[in-house]
Structure formats: structure tokens, C-alpha cells
């Protein structure tokens, strides 16, 4: 085949141009994939949050009431391990000094009072940042989720969480379940677990189990980005506090104390 220099250069130039155009055409032709398909039946939100009205809890429920804790642990097959060092907890009571250590000795009226604590589903979660396998991740709706399939049990997240909201399965949890909920999986030895804001119930349009279980309405759940949501109503009208705000994790669990 014969080709003079002029034709060769022309062809080469055209070829180069074509190569440069390919990515542009690619971007132009790419159609947006359908987002959110299949999630229509559940409740969607931009940022889930929980308000715990401790005043209501102390006044109506008292220290004996464990409804929310039992409902949560039953719904999620959380084992009841007697050894405090190996306990698994998603939601539990902690004295004021432990829940708000920076306030120790400052609020006399709250000294020693039990506070309901759980995962804060932080807006800037340190546990997510340290997870080497991305087993724990932040969903678009603000929930800090665990993918137990990926957890390798390194417990970095437990070290990173300033709220102690995570538990490690030191042993097979199954023998410690009194009643197993077949609709929700258990965990196995060697994974970390924590509260998931009842993501599985939200997907079905149900409120979290603890919120549903509270007879006194001390737990209020809703979307922080929705100005008409019940949580926003409380945050507007009442004084609320968060745990360890000085750490900048921006918790999404709020407490009403008075």
C-alpha cells in the first residue's frame, strides 16, 4: 500500500481527534441510572434522628421500665450474656456521669440519673472512618450501618467510637438467646454489632422497635431535614443536649433533660 506523508499525517490527526472525543461522547450519552428504585414502599428520610425525652422516661417509666431495651434486643436477636465483659448491647442505660463525662459534677440535679444510650448515628462517624473493610458505612439517610458479612472483627470501630456503642461477639451468641426472631439474623462469633436505627423496620414503613415499645412516648424518631417532623418540633421547643459534642462527631441522638 502506498501512502504519501501528507495523507498519513491527516489520518493520524483525525485518529487522535477521535480518541479525544470518545470520553466526551461517553459522558454525553450516559443516562442517569434509575435511583431509589425498589425502595418506594419504606419510609425515606434525609437524616434520621432520635430524641430521648429523659424527663418523661424518669417520670413515667422509672428505673424499672426496660420496654425499649427488651423490644430492641428481642427484635434483633441480641444475646443476653451475663458476663459484663462480654455483654452485647444495642441500647442500654448508663449513669449520667458515664454518658456525659465532660459534665461530671456540673449538673447536680442529674447526678447518677440513668440515661438511655445507643449508637448516635453520628454525622461524622469515626467508626466508619477507621473500618478497614468498609463493613460499617454511612447510608444516605444518615444511618450508620453494619454489613456483618464484611466484618472481620478487628474492633477498630470499637476503639474509635467515643460512645462505647459497639459490642464484640466474643463467643457464639446463639446459646444466649432466649427467643430467636427468625425474621432477623443473629450474629456469629468474631463480629462487632450495634444499633442500626431499625433500618429493616424503616424499610417496611415501621418506626424503630424501641420507639414503638415506649408506652410513654419518651422516644421520638423522625427526619431532621423535614421541618414538620416530630423531632424538629421538639428540637425547636425544648432544650436538648447531645453526648460529647466537643468531639465533633455530630450525633443524631438528642436528649431532653428538663
Amino acid at each position, binding site marked *: 500500500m502506498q501512502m504519501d506523508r501528507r495523507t498519513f499525517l491527516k489520518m493520524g490527526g483525525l485518529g487522535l481527534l477521535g480518541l479525544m472525543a470518545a470520553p466526551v461522547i461517553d459522558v454525553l450519552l450516559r443516562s442517569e441510572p434509575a435511583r431509589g428504585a425498589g*425502595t418506594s414502599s*419504606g419510609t425515606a428520610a434525609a437524616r434520621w434522628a432520635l430524641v430521648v425525652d429523659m424527663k418523661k422516661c424518669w417520670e413515667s417509666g422509672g428505673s424499672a421500665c426496660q420496654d425499649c431495651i427488651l423490644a430492641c434486643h428481642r427484635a434483633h436477636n441480641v444475646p443476653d450474656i451475663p458476663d459484663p465483659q462480654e455483654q452485647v448491647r444495642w441500647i442500654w442505660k448508663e449513669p449520667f456521669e458515664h454518658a456525659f463525662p465532660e459534665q461530671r459534677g456540673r449538673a447536680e440535679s442529674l447526678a447518677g440519673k440513668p440515661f438511655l444510650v445507643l449508637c448516635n448515628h453520628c454525622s461524622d462517624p469515626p467508626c466508619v472512618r477507621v473500618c478497614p473493610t468498609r463493613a460499617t458505612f454511612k*447510608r*444516605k439517610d444518615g444511618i450508620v450501618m453494619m*454489613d456483618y*458479612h464484611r466484618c472481620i472483627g478487628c474492633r477498630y470501630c470499637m476503639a474509635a467510637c467515643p460512645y462505647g456503642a459497639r459490642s464484640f461477639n466474643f463467643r457464639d451468641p446463639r446459646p444466649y438467646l432466649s427467643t*430467636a426472631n427468625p425474621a432477623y*439474623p443473629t450474629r*456469629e462469633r468474631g463480629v462487632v454489632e450495634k444499633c442500626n436505627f431499625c433500618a429493616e423496620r424503616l424499610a417496611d414503613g415501621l418506626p424503630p422497635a424501641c420507639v414503638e415499645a415506649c408506652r410513654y412516648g419518651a422516644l421520638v424518631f423522625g427526619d431532621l431535614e423535614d421541618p414538620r417532623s416530630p423531632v424538629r418540633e421538639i428540637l425547636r421547643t425544648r432544650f436538648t443536649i447531645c453526648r460529647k459534642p466537643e468531639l465533633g462527631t455530630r450525633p443524631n441522638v438528642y436528649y431532653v433533660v428538663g
Partner: protein
Amino acid sequence: MYDSGKILTGLLIFALLLTFPVWYHLGRATPPPEPDLNTPVIAGLAKKECIEPAEYMRAYHMELLKTWRERAVRSGEKTYVSRDGREYPMSLEDTCLKCHSNKSRFCDQCHNYLGVQPNCWNCHVVPEEGGR
């Protein structure tokens, strides 16, 4: 050759040990797996078919479950649309185990035969198998 007797005996023993799995199982063929589809839910189905064609499920159910687990847990998706347009919840409990409620006579059949040990059941609860 020095010590040929010892060496040959040793070699013979070694060869026997090496081929142990072969002759130990000679004439004792493991029966091929027979996954049992006889559950009340399946018996009640008008059209007995899985969410995708059986050949596909047989070959790729593990791949399907893996994508389900990623999509359901990580992307928060709920519904699987099969290739012929039917919709199913992406859930081992709510979809697979509703029909295949007989793990020991369905899942375990092939898994045991092939010596695979899927770790699904370490966490997912096996449905109770009644005497059928």
C-alpha cells in the same frame, strides 16, 4: 542397592497411603444429591418455578445471593425484579426460605455432596423443619 527390601516396602507403604482416598472409596460411590422440592409452599404453587429458571439457579444461586446481599445491605434496595419481570423481596428469609423451608433436604444435599460449607447459617436462622 543396599537395603532394597526396606526401601521397596517403604515405597509400597507410601504409595498405598498416597492412593488411600482412591481405594478407600472404591465401590462406595456417594449417591448423587437429590434436592427435595417437596415443601407445603412449593406444593401449593400453581406454577412450580423458582425466581429464575432452575438451570440458572442451580449454577448461579450463590452469585445471585451475593448481589442480593450487597444490594439489600449496602444500597438499601428491597425488590428484585426477575428476568421475566416478577418482583421478589431481596431476602434470604422472606424469599428463598419461604419456599425452600427444608434446608437439610434441599440446601445441604448438594453442599454436602460437593463439600462446600457456605457460612449463611452462622447468622441467618434456619427455619424449623417439621416432620413432613
